[in-house]
């Protein structure tokens, strides 16, 4: 991969990630303005409110088109954007056969994934 192409890929990952997350967060926010944060766009009602720390229930709440769940998906996408940028850099440096920087970017990726999945 040429350095120009490498930069192009990194730049595109960032723009697409921020674009998608901003669209989701915006959609969730507008929906919340219309029906409130506890509501559902298709009228499904939950007995209990959402928990900000529980992501296991997110798919079900997304299926119910809850504004809070749509915004949360956008926030998760936003968090994933720099992670995707680092992952793309690992591949880029590997294709450039730059062993030192492949190792450095893999270490950064490992720190990010550890913090996201294992640390509270």
């Amino acid at each position, binding site marked *: 991969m040429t350095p120009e192409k490498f930069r192009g890929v990194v730049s595109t990952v960032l723009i697409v990630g921020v674009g998608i997350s901003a669209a989701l967060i915006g959609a969730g*926010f507008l929906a919340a303005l219309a029906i409130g944060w506890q509501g559902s766009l298709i009228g499904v009602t939950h007995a209990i409110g959402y928990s900000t720390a529980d992501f296991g229930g997110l798919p079900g709440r997304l299926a119910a088109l809850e504004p809070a769940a749509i915004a949360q998906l*956008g926030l998760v996408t936003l968090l994933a954007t720099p992670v995707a940028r680092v992952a793309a*850099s690992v591949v880029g440096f590997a294709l450039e056969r730059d062993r030192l*920087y492949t190792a450095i970017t893999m270490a950064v990726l490992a720190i*990010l994934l550890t*913090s996201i999945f294992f640390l509270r």
Partner: protein
Amino acid sequence: MTPQADLGIFAISVAAGLIGALAGVGGGILVIPALTFGFGVDIHLAVGASIVSVIATSSGAAAAYVRDRMTNMRVGMFLELATTTGAVCGALLAAVVAPGFLYVLLGVVLLGSAGMQVARMGEEAPPTDQPSPLAARLRLESSYPDRRLGREVPYSARRIPLGFVMMWIAGVVSGLLGIGSGVLKVIAMDGAMRLPMKVSSATSNFMIGVTAAASAGIYLGRGDVDPQIAAPVALGVLTGALIGARLLHRISNRSVRLIFMPVLVAVGLETIGRGLGFGL
């Protein structure tokens, strides 16, 4: 939360993003006092909301700089080892330190940022020093296109261990306060490592998103990223920063910073006052 409060948080975040962009600091540093003082939001939720807005604004800006070859991706990736480790430490520490300490630290960073902007009013080209052997081994030497000078400017890095330690500290501050700590990153690259100012700013922006992601993961898992607050804040700060970036092209950097410096100083003093328990 009521729609009025939702729109209020959005509006105040737009203002924070706009003033932050015009004053040359991130939006997070202003949005945290605005949320806690203005809307009575718990400081941990304000920090959680701010940190995700930092990812949004820095990633958007970084995309353009990377394409323009202003960013040194090797310098950025290497120093991210330090900032992400620091950010993790900061986010873990934030849960155990007293809120008063967070306010005082935030205020000190605000005042320091204001001081840095004044010091940077007269910007000059960096000296072309002898590169360090470590810089050569880490392949940190490069060049960037300078439009004003109309030529490629070659550069290399010096005092790398010092820069690395300063970056770790910048990471801790970012993780503790939910801010980008771009000013500290620029001081490490421009001041300690003697990289050109423009490369330092662009590379700092590139690194901020990854630094923020390291602590944002912890805040998210802890439940401190409440969509009710984080959604309007992220949208608002991003909108404000985009408007600010447009406006900056039309007005002089210098006068804008002079106008907003008193704002930073006032917010900084107010924040320290709150932290020490003197509510105004």
